[in-house]
């Protein structure tokens, strides 16, 4: 099915099941420990051996010697596999550095070997007995130093120019020219990378933890030089990914190598201290923002340049993305520059581009509003645009940013905010309020599903879509239930298996809308087939309450499968509505923060997000996405930073004791409001994503609240207390 004209009314609009706060259908499995995660599967052909990965002890250089003799003699050891004795591997197209390094070392903790043994403890112990000698090379580890040599990009990351930015900025009545920095960040998902792999002849099977089954299958095939049909990937439950599990990673490659070497299934879970440098991260950025306005507060010039670094052959953090679309203004400029660094591989993390981009842009907007003496909510409203400002002929499919801001301001009690910073106090605490716009593009991805109607009236959905803790099982069940006129209990959902039709997968907040659209498409086919079997006109048949009705006839849906199961499979494809209309999601974040006037510690007191993201498929799971994202935003604002050792080229705080993310005590009451929307130009579901929107802008809202509390502007994330301590009011 191709979606190329705006959706008319369709069965989803009934919203008997869709749009309802249905409990997670997999909730009980998870809360009772019965949902098996990658490392826990028992469905394997033989007792697995354990693999332990050895990561490089230097960031750049060569392995000159690897002595495995002692390790091989240790109790229980079955194999030691490294580049020296591994089969020659291909390289997938999606990861930058090789997943098995050696003798060349491309980054710290790059996997160099796997030790396989009968028990985990034996494997770990023997891994520590492998002696590796290195020759250190010269690496580039400092973004600020590499910045002058950073290069422009092409394609969707190419520079953009609209009007005469330089001229308009130079002559603007009010000007802002500031530089902001965001640090390297880690996904810090709860479940580590984990895989059980085994070979049956030349076919490879894995239980793994991965967000994108079809990509994973393709990349595994490329790495092991197999035809894709020889690879079976299963990932039915995933304990968080945040983009860290979009791609094939070393756990799966090393498990497959180990399994080949010892002729048995091998399981690997990456130890946390290895993960942070072994896998991908969100790269640091340096962002320069220039904004010029007239005296009336209208933006006349807006420019955003961003520098980030990655390994040779890698990509940039597209931090300028939102600036192309968020505010009006005739004269515009965006530029991305990419430097080569020898730090671990940079790649996507929740809301890549917009998350760090808005951390900078939305402070800049706050600063301009202050220069203008204008309320920051009003300044944003004034500069709203209903069209793509770089291509004014392209309207937004739906854009209710202004309502998010105004509605949020009312609910939050924004009028109580003091315009002059540092003026509100509660005992020892300095109190401030901050706002930021949330913005994230909607992306649609091809997505297929298979649906089966069996004679007991149960509909089973099969698609390789993943549920990374987001609620995919539930919204897919709701979609099929709505389409087939069934209660959710009559739908079974099977996910995360590469033998199922390829879905959108989970990433870029495209999963919910795209995968349910695929299920919609398959259900349209199933409805036709069921109606035909029942001798009814598919065009007029209605599916409700477990029945199919047409004219004055009605029959139980189950009856359609009496003579045998009905199977329908369909793929949702997307026409050019995304080109004709800019499809994006919007929101406004409001934060009240308290800063200890003595110690400079910041505590967030209240948070509110108002979101406009199309139809909300399930307000309960959507709210969970947004409050989780807001929590992540607080982490990004106040504490999260991979500390780079610029001499040795690695992230020093590479465990969850050193890389701090918020704990419960950091997070106050969080309010989430969804505007009642349905966007007919994005999909038959009329829905868009929310999973990343919830993060976008949170950091800046916190930063603006902290500024409003203290009067000290910090432009370097995270806003740890040392960055404003010396400038806080003097103490007695």
């Amino acid at each position, binding site marked *: 099915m191709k979606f190329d004209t705006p959706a008319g009314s369709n069965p989803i609009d009934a919203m008997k099941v869709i749009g309802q706060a249905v409990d997670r259908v997999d909730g009980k499995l998870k809360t009772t420990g019965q949902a098996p995660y990658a490392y826990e599967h028992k469905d394997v052909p033989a007792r697995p051996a354990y693999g332990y990965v050895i990561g490089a002890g230097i960031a750049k250089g060569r392995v000159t010697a690897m002595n495995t003799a002692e390790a091989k003699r240790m109790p229980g050891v079955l194999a030691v596999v490294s580049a020296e004795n591994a089969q020659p591997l291909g390289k997938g197209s999606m990861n930058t550095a090789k997943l098995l390094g050696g003798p060349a070392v491309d980054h710290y903790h790059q996997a160099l070997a796997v030790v396989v043994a009968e028990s985990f403890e034996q494997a770990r112990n023997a891994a520590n007995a492998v002696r590796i000698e290195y020759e250190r090379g010269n690496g580039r580890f400092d973004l600020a130093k590499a910045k002058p040599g950073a290069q422009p990009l092409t394609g969707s990351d190419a520079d953009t120019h609209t009007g005469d930015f330089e001229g308009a900025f130079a002559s603007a009545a009010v000007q802002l020219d500031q530089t902001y920095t965001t640090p390297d960040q880690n996904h810090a998902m709860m479940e580590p990378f984990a895989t059980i792999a085994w070979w049956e002849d030349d076919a490879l099977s894995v239980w793994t933890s991965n967000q994108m089954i079809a990509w994973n299958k393709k990349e595994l095939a490329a790495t092991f030089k197999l035809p894709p049909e020889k690879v079976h990937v299963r990932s039915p439950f995933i304990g968080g990914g945040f983009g860290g599990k979009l791609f094939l990673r070393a756990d799966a490659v090393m498990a497959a190598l180990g399994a080949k070497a010892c002729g048995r299934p091998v399981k690997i879970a990456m130890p946390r201290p290895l993960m942070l440098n072994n896998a991908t991260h969100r790269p640091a950025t340096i962002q320069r923002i220039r904004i010029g306005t007239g005296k009336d507060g209208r933006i006349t010039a807006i420019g955003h340049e961003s520098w980030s670094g990655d390994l040779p052959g890698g990509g940039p953090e597209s931090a300028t993305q939102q600036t192309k679309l968020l505010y009006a203004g005739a004269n515009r400029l965006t530029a991305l520059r990419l430097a080569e660094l020898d730090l671990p591989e940079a790649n996507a993390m929740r809301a890549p581009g917009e998350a760090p981009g808005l951390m900078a842009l939305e402070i800049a907007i706050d600063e301009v509003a202050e220069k203008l003496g204008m309320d920051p909510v009003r300044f944003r409203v004034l500069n709203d645009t209903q069209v793509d400002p770089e291509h004014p002929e392209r309207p937004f499919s739906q854009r209710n940013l202004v309502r998010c801001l105004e509605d949020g301001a009312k609910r939050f009690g924004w009028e109580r905010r003091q315009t002059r910073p540092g003026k509100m106090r509660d005992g020892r605490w300095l109190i401030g309020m901050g706002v930021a716009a949330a913005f994230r593009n909607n992306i649609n991805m091809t997505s297929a599903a298979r649906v089966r109607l069996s004679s007991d009236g149960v509909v089973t959905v099969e698609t390789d879509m993943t549920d990374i803790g987001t609620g995919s099982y539930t919204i897919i069940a709701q979609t099929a239930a709505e389409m087939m006129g069934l209660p959710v209990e009559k739908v079974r959902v099977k996910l995360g298996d590469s033998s199922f039709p390829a879905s959108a997968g989970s990433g870029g907040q495209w999963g919910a809308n795209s995968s349910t659209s695929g299920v919609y498409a398959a259900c349209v086919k199933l409805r036709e087939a069921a109606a035909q079997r029942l001798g009814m006109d598919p065009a007029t048949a209605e599916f409700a309450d477990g029945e199919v009705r047409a004219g004055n006839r009605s029959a139980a849906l189950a009856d359609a499968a009496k003579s045998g199961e009905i199977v329908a499979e369909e793929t949702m494809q997307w026409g050019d509505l995304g080109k004709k209309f800019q499809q994006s999601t919007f929101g406004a974040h409001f934060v009240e923060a308290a800063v200890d006037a*003595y110690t400079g510690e910041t505590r967030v007191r209240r948070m509110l997000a108002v979101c406009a993201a199309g139809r909300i498929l399930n307000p309960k799971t959507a709210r969970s996405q947004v409050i989780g994202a807001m929590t992540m935003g607080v982490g990004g604002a*106040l*504490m999260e930073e991979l500390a780079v050792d610029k001499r040795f080229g690695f992230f*020093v705080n590479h465990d969850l004791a050193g890389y701090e993310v918020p704990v419960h005590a950091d997070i106050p009451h969080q309010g989430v409001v969804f505007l009642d929307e349905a966007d007919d130009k994005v999909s038959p579901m009329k829905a868009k994503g929310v999973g990343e929107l919830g993060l976008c802008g949170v950091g800046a809202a916190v930063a603006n609240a902290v500024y409003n509390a203290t009067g000290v502007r910090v432009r370097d994330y995270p806003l740890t207390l040392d960055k404003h*301590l010396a400038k806080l009011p003097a103490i007695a």
Partner: protein
Amino acid sequence: MKAFTYERARTPAAAAAAVAGHKGAKFIAGGTNLLDLMKLEIETPTHLVDVQDLGLDRIEETTEGGLRIGTLVSNTALAADKRVRRDYGVLTRAIVAGASGQLRNKATTGGNLLQRTRCPYFYDTNQACNKRKPGSGCAAIGGFSRQLGVVGTSEACIATHPSDMAVALRVLDAAVETVDAQGKTRSVPVGEFHRLPGDTPHLENVLQPGELITAVTLPKPPGGRHVYHKVRDRASYAFALVSVAAVLNEDGSGRVAFGGVAPRPWRVEAADAQLRNGAGAVTRTAFADARPTHENAFKVTLAERTLAAIIQENRA
């Protein structure tokens, strides 16, 4: 983790003898620190002597009017003890500011005093570290040192002692009671228990091989207002950037010790005497010899401001 043998000792002297008589042996109490370090092969004991059956899990009153806290008393039990909460509030407050409920249930008094530094380079066996591998150098100096020490450090090591409990014990003038393999006992003031790193950062305290901590004693209650203020990047479950333990009298006099800044709980008696002259006077004395790095110089300011908040509240 390296393979090791394990035994459970029946008496304190037997435990001490078991460790003294076995090269590479160590005591294990709650295991919350030791096991983590063993997994990373930062600690590689060949033999573990478990001290949990020694009957050292009681809090008793001493004839001097203080308390004797058995080494096996859990951090949770110690913090919750009625007498401790009433008379030594700074100790309760310090303990509950540390780790998490689950960890405090397992962590013991002696183990807490002997927990090792949280310097990230100490934890990464690819990096040079004089504490982990004497003579290998110190990767933290000139590296990521934001968390590390500002005073009492050396050219060889700038790590901090991470305990919260120990900072309160220091301000309370507690003492550590021990027994050795010969059954000889002694009592060491907490202030003399941890060694400064000098050229030998791997030697962290005055215990002799096999010497077992049996108890920590508190002198009779000091009175005054007890405060523990721990400052960190998140609200809970993190080690201190700076912490301040204080016992303040109504007239503004008192005592104060600092955590998160030095290789041992940091107290300078001469600085106590400055308390009535304000926080700046105290910290100028306490940190007179500070040699912070570029990344952690803020800790000196933070110590002053944190103490100022405590003094201000005491006045109010």
